[in-house]
């Protein structure tokens, strides 16, 4: 398939969003990263959201640790309750590594992709965004649409409001909303609020 600049740009946006969902670590979550993020938000007409993140970070004595704590609470083992594990199966099968994870893996395979040894589960949000990035790179729009509508949106629309409502940090509210906007069909109904 022809590779156009637009494809590449869409691919790099997916890739960037995937990176945002990694565990915060100063290795990548550094000044450069935040500057790029603020520029991106500004271009999207969301400069004030960028400012809000910047202010929150500036107020903290250890902003990365604060993000790590929030990431743990939201996505790993929070107290009193993990908010939203970033795995499709959790929403579709009430399980880690349920049938939905397998369906997702089979979709990757059918498109000629596989999971690296070091990878997390196939239905992890990060990998789904990476996969979407790779499809975009190949200009496989059909595949992208099919993946979004059958395997991504069904769970993501449950996941996103949980995070957006429960998070105490503007960074994660921004990231999940950005992903939401980037993957949501116009005609899609507003998402169901599904309290954790």
């Amino acid at each position, binding site marked *: 398939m022809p590779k156009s600049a637009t494809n590449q740009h869409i691919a790099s946006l997916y*890739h960037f969003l995937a990176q945002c969902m990694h565990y915060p670590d100063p290795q990548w979550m550094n000044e450069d990263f935040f500057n790029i993020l603020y*520029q991106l938000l500004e271009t999207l007409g969301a400069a004030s959201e960028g400012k809000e993140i910047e202010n929150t970070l500036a107020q903290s004595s250890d902003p990365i640790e604060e993000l790590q704590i929030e990431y743990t609470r939201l996505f790993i*083992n929070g107290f009193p309750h993990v908010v939203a594990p970033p795995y499709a199966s959790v929403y579709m099968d009430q399980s880690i590594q349920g049938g939905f994870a397998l369906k997702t893996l089979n979709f990757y395979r059918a498109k000629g992709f596989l999971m690296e040894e070091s990878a997390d589960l196939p239905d992890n949000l990060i990998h789904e965004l990476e996969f979407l990035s790779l499809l975009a790179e190949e200009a496989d729009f059909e595949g992208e649409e099919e993946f979004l509508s059958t395997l991504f949106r069904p769970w993501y629309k449950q996941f996103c409001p949980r995070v957006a409502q429960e998070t105490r940090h503007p960074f994660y509210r921004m990231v999940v909303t950005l992903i939401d906007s*980037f993957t949501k069909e*116009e005609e899609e109904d507003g998402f169901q609020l599904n309290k954790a």
Partner: protein
Amino acid sequence: MAFNLTRRKFLQTASLVAAAVPLSKVAYAQPGVAKVSLEPKGTMGDTTVVGGLCEMCFWRCQLIGKVRDGQLMKLEGNPKSIDNGTSICARGNAGVKLLYDVDRLKYPLKNVGQRGAPIWKRISWQEALDECGSKLKAIVEKHGPQGICVFPHGASAKYPMHYFERTVGTHNVSEASFFQCRGIRDVAYVATTGKAPGEFVDMANTKVIFLIGSHLGENIHVSHIKAYIKGLQNGAKLVVADPRYSAAAAKSDIWVQIKPGTDTAYLLAIMNYLVTNKKYDKKFVAEHTAGFDKFSAAISEWTLDKAAKECDIPAAQIKEVAELLAANAPHVAIHPGRHVSWYGNDFQRERALACLTGILGAYYVKGGWVPPKNPKLGKTSWAQQEHGDEHNLNVSHDKKVHPFNPPGTPTELIRDCAISGKPYPIKGCVIWGQNPMQTIPNQEKMKQVFKAMDFVMCVDVMPTDATMWADILLPESSYLERHDEIKAGTGRIKADDKEPTQFIAPRMPLVAPMFERKDQVYITNEIAKRMGHAKDIPVQTLEELVDKTLATANITLASVKAEGGIHLQPGQSGYGVPEDFMVQLFSEEIAAAGFPGAPTYIAIEEVPAGFARLLYGRAPVHTFNRSQNNVWLNQQMPDNPVWLNDEVAAKIGLKDGDIVGFINSEGVRSRTTTTVKVTPGIRKDAVYMYHGYGSANPLMSTGVGKGVDDTSLITKIAIDPESGCHGMRNNFVKLTKDGKVLDIPA
């Protein structure tokens, strides 16, 4: 939010955005999805993986896993098994749901909040291990090895437990399986017969199955239940003493609805009847028992009438049971029980069971107590080192406080020392697979222990009510994801085989561990290195540990795997009394230690007016609190209704299904409520519920707050003086409804 755009509009601006923003400058992680150069494969298909060993309970049924693309789809009994065969129980099946439980621990966590009200932060293994190693080392340097206490449970806890006991050198280790469960049984039988009894009753071939409180059927261990059912099918009579109409009572020929806590009096009356009426096994008594005269004299006060009054059962029924046993002896299965830490007088009851088996001559005979001749395997672990008794809390002035304690130190001695700092400070706590909040009575006291610590570390597969108290919480690979534990036993390939066959089944992983879960050898070794014990490390990996152990039977993991996960070899029958086998009917050793030399009934506290005794037991689809978050099992039995006598219910205006809470005689209220099960099948002076419900940890999204946590109501502590183990059925409750406290009528 300003960028709440639709996808289409977003895409239209994508080029603009990407062109304006240097996205490529981000330090990206290596992607987890990659293009395959070859033709993409379809699904990898289904495989059957052998070598599983269940640990949804401790029975260790042998499993195979049906695996699709690395995902465990289903567990089944291993067709090669001569133990559980192809059968597994509901809990065994639900292991899949433990493996993939959403709430399972995934990464090392550090508590940056407070113990009991944690704020978790994911940290690296390096950081977690450094923290555990340095904190524990600092405690040992300041307070000595005795400054660390350990609460282990399960197969994976053995290796770290040996490290802390043998290499670090603390005596302060308390295993729930001993001090809150079966320890009393083991030490009482050892003191009486020299052998821990297991559950080695030959029920399949017996004529009478005699149970005290054992609720087989609700308490399910596959091969044990198979033998029980086979015995009943073969016409064995079943005698069940239980204040409650349990699943076993429902199948019984004689249901002895005994008053709680009086079982020893019942046993003494049976034995006294057998002795006075010369209905005991004279030959066995002459050849294999000691102290018969003193024993007979000591129990002679226990006439049928006296016991009938004490136990609140008809004298004629005791006589009927005694006659039934005498008529069928020696082919009678006097079950030693398993969870026996009930009233704080339990050593004596277990002694009485061992002696009753003795005077009936029911050791090593068909249908009696018959220990299997299992394969001999060497043990590989940390080397034993001598640490002296100076800091052994169970030794005072060169005398043992509880002389017949199971291995480790009685829990209450550890807790008292940790809280008071006397005779020495205990400042570090290692919890490995145990949930002391829901296994050890008096939760407030446990909290005080945690609060007194400088450092608490927990290793588990799931969050529990105890993990909330950790400073560092480490995720362990589950029994389906690792090697370890070797189940060795004896069975028959075909039911009518003359000679038994031995089997050896080492646990093998059915799937690879996910996330950053690690096994016990890795975690322990890394901590040991940081505590200065690198040179003492016995094995580098869990696989090596298992292989070294298997080498003692001339087999390897690889050879067993090739055999289908279970190695079989010829066995020997367990029948035939060894010449030197002796039953101490009157034990001079016990008498010399200052306790009754003959089994003795010690009365327990009566139920105060207005209260009922709180009894608890097992649910067939749960293993205590360990399985309360399991989605499948929770669906089977989401809460634990409280059994209430129908006449009592009528008097206090409760009906089946009403929602109630509890308040105990010490003023402790249950955190949650449950439903009432109104039934004539329980005595008026007791209520009953299944144990292991009502978790307080919201991290267990399925189990939290479902049913009532019976342990939270067990605040009065009884200690069995001989063994130092807990008695947990000496607590009294009233029910509450809509905020009103309801007195239980007499």
